[in-house]
């Protein structure tokens, strides 16, 4: 036959918790009340940190900061689906996922204070530092997922990036390599609709971002990214597949409610009507309605959580501020190489670093 269809594909989309707070009982992941509260608290903690960080930046205390307001379900939902010894390979907007994985909030603030201390990875933490170039880090996640497989371990790497990153060649190389090497890797693309000011329709002509997986021969799936339960379910399934050497690309449909970074003014490129529409789909409110209905979250628990988070963030701010006072500029020489080469040592001595040690 001269012409025939040789391949056909579909992309599945999942939503468990609808916008009005009702659930599809057949799809609800089996989470205990405590796990549900962790999910809620993780999202709240991140929201609070972002709000405080924006204010600190406005007061001139922090450098440029990239808030993730609106994307908490996509991140916390997927991060809590990971096992303790899995790896997270983040971009620069992953404070919700990092916090959910146990990164202390003062480290996120240290990074925003321009301190490498915030990107320090103590042994065995299973995280790589924030990646600033768009779309470069999924390759590292494939290296991690492949490296774990080569050493006979079942840990997976979960990497995060945005819709804009899918235009970068490295993301395609990463999806392709993951497929070729059966890397134990899950790609979480948070389609938050904007790459700074560039809308999705100017980013790609593809109908979904999940279908970017198809060309690489790996599975792609879409989930409502403002539905914490849906994300948790899809991510859990993807992580289990990845453990078996089958990488998955998840497209989480969400919305970046605030600015790209604190240097950005979204009012220039988007309408407030659109922002209002997405405010009504807020992932935290949606889960809260569900938890209220389910009787898991009463007013007392809610204020307990809020107070705990406020205290934690206040302490983290103090801690980050204090550590800023202790910054030793000579440190920049100490970590460029495992052992300082002679020419660097000469520069270090000229800098005055050699004098005290």
């Amino acid at each position, binding site marked *: 036959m001269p012409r025939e269809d040789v391949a056909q594909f579909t992309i599945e989309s999942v939503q468990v918790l609808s916008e009005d707070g009702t659930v599809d009982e057949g799809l609800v992941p089996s989470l205990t009340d405590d796990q549900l509260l962790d999910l809620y608290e993780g999202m709240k903690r991140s929201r609070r940190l972002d709000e405080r960080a924006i204010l600190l930046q406005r007061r001139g205390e922090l450098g440029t900061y990239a808030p993730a307001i609106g994307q908490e379900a996509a991140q916390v939902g997927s991060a809590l689906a990971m096992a303790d010894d899995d790896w997270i390979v983040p971009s620069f907007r992953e404070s919700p996922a990092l916090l959910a994985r146990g990164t202390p909030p003062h480290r996120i603030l240290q990074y925003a204070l321009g301190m490498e201390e915030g990107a320090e990875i103590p042994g065995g933490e299973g995280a790589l530092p924030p990646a600033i170039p768009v779309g*470069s880090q999924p*390759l590292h996640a494939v290296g991690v997922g492949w490296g774990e497989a080569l050493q006979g371990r079942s840990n997976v790497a979960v990497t995060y990036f945005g819709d804009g990153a899918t235009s970068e060649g490295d993301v395609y*190389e990463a999806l392709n390599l993951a497929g070729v090497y059966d890397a134990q890797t899950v790609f979480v693309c948070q389609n938050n609709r904007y790459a700074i000011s560039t809308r999705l329709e100017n980013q790609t002509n593809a109908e979904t971002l999940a279908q970017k997986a198809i060309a690489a021969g790996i599975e792609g799936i879409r989930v409502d990214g403002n539905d914490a339960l849906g994300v948790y379910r899809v991510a859990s399934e993807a992580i289990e597949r990845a453990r078996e050497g089958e990488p998955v690309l998840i497209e989480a449909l969400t919305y970046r409610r605030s600015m790209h970074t604190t240097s950005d003014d979204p009012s220039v490129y988007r309408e407030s009507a659109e922002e209002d529409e997405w405010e009504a789909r807020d992932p935290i409110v949606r889960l809260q309605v569900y938890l209220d209905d389910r009787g898991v979250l009463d007013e007392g628990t809610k204020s307990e959580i809020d107070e705990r988070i406020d205290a934690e963030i206040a302490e983290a701010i103090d801690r980050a501020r204090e550590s800023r006072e202790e910054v030793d500029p000579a440190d920049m020489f100490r*970590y*460029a190489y495992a052992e300082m080469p002679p020419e660097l040592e000469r520069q270090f001595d000229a800098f005055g670093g050699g004098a005290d040690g």
Partner: protein
Amino acid sequence: MAEQLRMVEAVRETLRAELERDDGVVVYGEDVGRAGGVFRSTQGLMDDYPDRVFDAPVAEAGIVGLGVGLAATGLTPVPEIQFQSFLYQGFHQLAQHVARIRSRTRGTVGCPMTIRTPYGGGIHALELHSESFEAGFAHVPGLKVVFPSSPAETKGLLTSAVRDPDPVVFMEPTRLYRSFREEVPDEHEIPLGEARVVDAGDDVTVVAWGSMLRETLDAVGDVDASVEVIDPRTIYPLDTETITESVRKTGRCVVVHEAPRTSGMAGEITARINEEAFLHLEAPVERVTGYDVPVPMFAREDAYLPDADRIAAGIGRALDFG
């Protein structure tokens, strides 16, 4: 037991020895597995180490970027980029991540990767198969840049590169791969950052590395003077002492490289000589280099590459000055 090997065989035997020594070493790259590399420098390794030698898709950014993750899990990646010019496609990974990961994590994550890549002209290759971008790599803090100039040097330097805790760009001079044999010891490690005084002399110092060392040795044969020839072997870190010590003795210096002149390593070496041995100089430091043009295709390649005549002329200018 020492064996007579060509450079390409020295690469292979070194990789084999490191795969044998350390089961964390992973060798991968385009065509390195089944085909054994387009230059055959990995031939047979996949048969012996099927779980640690891999073919890779044509994806240079990917090949470099994977190293960050592999290293984070505790492995030692030793990828090959088939020709140095195609490392441009992975340069962003090299500069943005590989070279910086130790610094930005304050020493908690390193990338002990050795990227092997054939470089340079003289084999009548296609366009964009003959570049020497070493100064570009040396300009990225966090990287080391290493040049073997013979089979035995290859063994010693590649062994050290693979064992080094930091990322190394290992520049293999394509034209020397099969040009001569040399006795290569079984156990051989040459520390990175130490130059070799190839020939001792009193009248003029010539600094050359990789394939240009061979041209320089040819040129020196025709020069009626006592020439000290130094092979720095690594251009980052550079063994400034050995070079400046020699210049203090000879008072004259010629730096040879096949990369374009502007912003090339000869400029850096000249600056260091100015800083450390200025008052000993009896002539300006001479540069014998490629030109500031894209490396031409092979019909004009010989006109571009420094050869023994140009090097001898440069030595002559340094000797005749004043």
